């Protein structure tokens, strides 16, 4: 199946001379959850804004379901729902009115039943007649999502959806995104919370300084870049790592009470057996051991550091 979004050779230089995007090539697959991960100022919002029509590209093309976003903007944009990063809502409109407005704006005939469905899914139905200004920040975030879903888009952009959102809402939002994917909606989210990408995404793109430095299946990324650590809790603290063990990638932690061995899960030999034998020969005894995998966060930090 062809990708639902095809970004080719896209770049953006702002009038100030700031080069927000270098040359971006990216394909988003139909029905996937794609997380665009990157530090602040990396170009995530610029990329989304170009696809959604808020920013003019300097060069390159974007096609949404085969429709060019400039030449055929009507067809392209009517497929897209956008939830912006900032809580930009009207103040005096009611929740129901603002969602209905969005539906009309995107060229769909009024359908109170659909608006009701969306509001119920976002726990906003009770608040349908409230003015937006009276709602809490979390509720306003839900209103923005309701607006974006009111016209039944097949692609949903969530720009930093859980920035400044409490845990409960974050869980709700994740559940909602999964439900949307189950109905065939493609979801693209930007985040600098690794946890979010790790929890939700099928694929992850890492963007830094306006460049996509990596696009990978999340599982593959974790596997490829994942390093594992074996942590040994020692019976007696060690002042330093003995000479005889210098061949291993070891560090001391917890004031010499823990010995940490870092190894590559993909390597032919992990070296664990050898290490344990060497430890026993050196007379180092341990009480307990555990292993941990490096999180996406650690992978991400090392990637961004490399590209900088």
């Amino acid at each position, binding site marked *: 199946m062809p990708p639902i979004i095809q970004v080719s050779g896209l770049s953006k230089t702002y009038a100030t001379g700031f080069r927000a995007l270098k040359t971006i090539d990216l394909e988003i697959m139909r029905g996937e959850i794609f997380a665009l991960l990157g530090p602040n100022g990396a170009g995530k919002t610029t990329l989304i804004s170009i696809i959604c*029509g*808020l*920013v003019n590209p300097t060069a390159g093309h974007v096609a949404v379901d085969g429709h060019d976003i400039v030449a055929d903007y009507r067809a392209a*944009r009517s497929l897209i729902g956008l939830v912006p990063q900032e809580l*930009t*809502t009207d103040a005096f409109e009611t929740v129901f009115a603002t969602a209905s407005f969005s539906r*009309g704006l*995107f*060229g769909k005939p009024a359908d109170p039943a659909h608006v009701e469905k969306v509001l119920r899914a976002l726990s906003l139905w009770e608040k349908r007649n409230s003015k937006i200004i009276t709602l809490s920040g979390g509720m306003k975030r839900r209103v923005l999502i309701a607006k974006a879903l009111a016209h039944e888009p097949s692609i949903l952009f969530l720009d930093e959806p859980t920035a400044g959102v409490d845990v409960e809402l974050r869980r709700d939002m994740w559940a909602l995104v999964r439900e949307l994917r189950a109905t065939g909606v493609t979801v693209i989210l930007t985040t600098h919370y690794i946890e979010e990408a790790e929890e939700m995404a099928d694929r992850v793109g890492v963007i830094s300084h306006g460049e996509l430095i990596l696009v990978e299946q999340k599982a593959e990324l974790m596997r490829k870049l994942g390093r594992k650590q074996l942590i040994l809790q020692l019976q007696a603290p060690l002042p330093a790592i003995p000479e005889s063990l210098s061949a291993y990638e070891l560090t001391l932690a917890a004031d010499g009470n823990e010995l940490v061995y870092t190894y590559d899960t993909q390597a032919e030999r992990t070296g664990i057996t050898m290490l344990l034998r060497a430890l026993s020969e050196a007379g180092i005894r341990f009480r307990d051991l555990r292993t941990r995998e490096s999180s996406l966060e650690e992978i991400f930090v090392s990637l961004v550091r490399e590209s900088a």
Partner: protein
Amino acid sequence: MNLYAIRAIYGFEMARTFRTLLQSVVSPVISTSLYFVVFGSAIGSRIAEVDGVSYGAFIVPGLIMLSLLTQSISNASFGIYFPKFTGTIYEVLSAPVSYWEIVVGYVGAAATKSMMLGLIILATASLFVPLRIEHPVWMFGFLVLTAATFSLFGFIIGIWADGFEKLQLVPLLIVTPLTFLGGSFYSIDMLPPLWRTLTFFNPVVYLVSGFRWSFYGSSDVGIEVSLAMTLVFLAVCLALVAWIFRTGYRLKS
């Protein structure tokens, strides 16, 4: 064409109007009534008839134009400036709407509102002075044309403005003086020759004159000239809006 979007924007703007009905309707009615009390009754009784029309009745078309211009500009400029200010404009810019659909929605609503006000002021005026309207169709035509043209002008100001001061600047420093000096309260024949000549550079003169002609059948300048000048100003505003949207001026980076 995305008719649903035009309807959505128009409906949104009209809802805003009706939400602020008191401030949008009552205050112009009160200020117009004050003009009648001061100019029509207190001062007007000492002024002779102008072109065979009592002074109180003479100022009615000018007063309606005054409100029409200022209200069109302020409605339309605020209507587009506010979403820019709060950031909600993102939704309109990301929607499958053409620029002209956006303009028709916002400017149409602003023009509707100021025309409603114009008609309310007309009704208020009829309580104070005997009115006659010789060319009602032309009267309505000028009302629509002026409301649309100046709402469009206000829309341009709203896009240009990057702060609340600028939003007030043009109406305050340019439009109000031009309206007051544009023959709302006098016939330009009353002016000394030099000022009369200068007045012909004031576009509001043509609006007021044409509008007054539709009431009383007499005017300072020919009706064709009035109509032509209004259309020229409309064309200039349309060209500016086209340029704004083509370049994304102050809307898109």
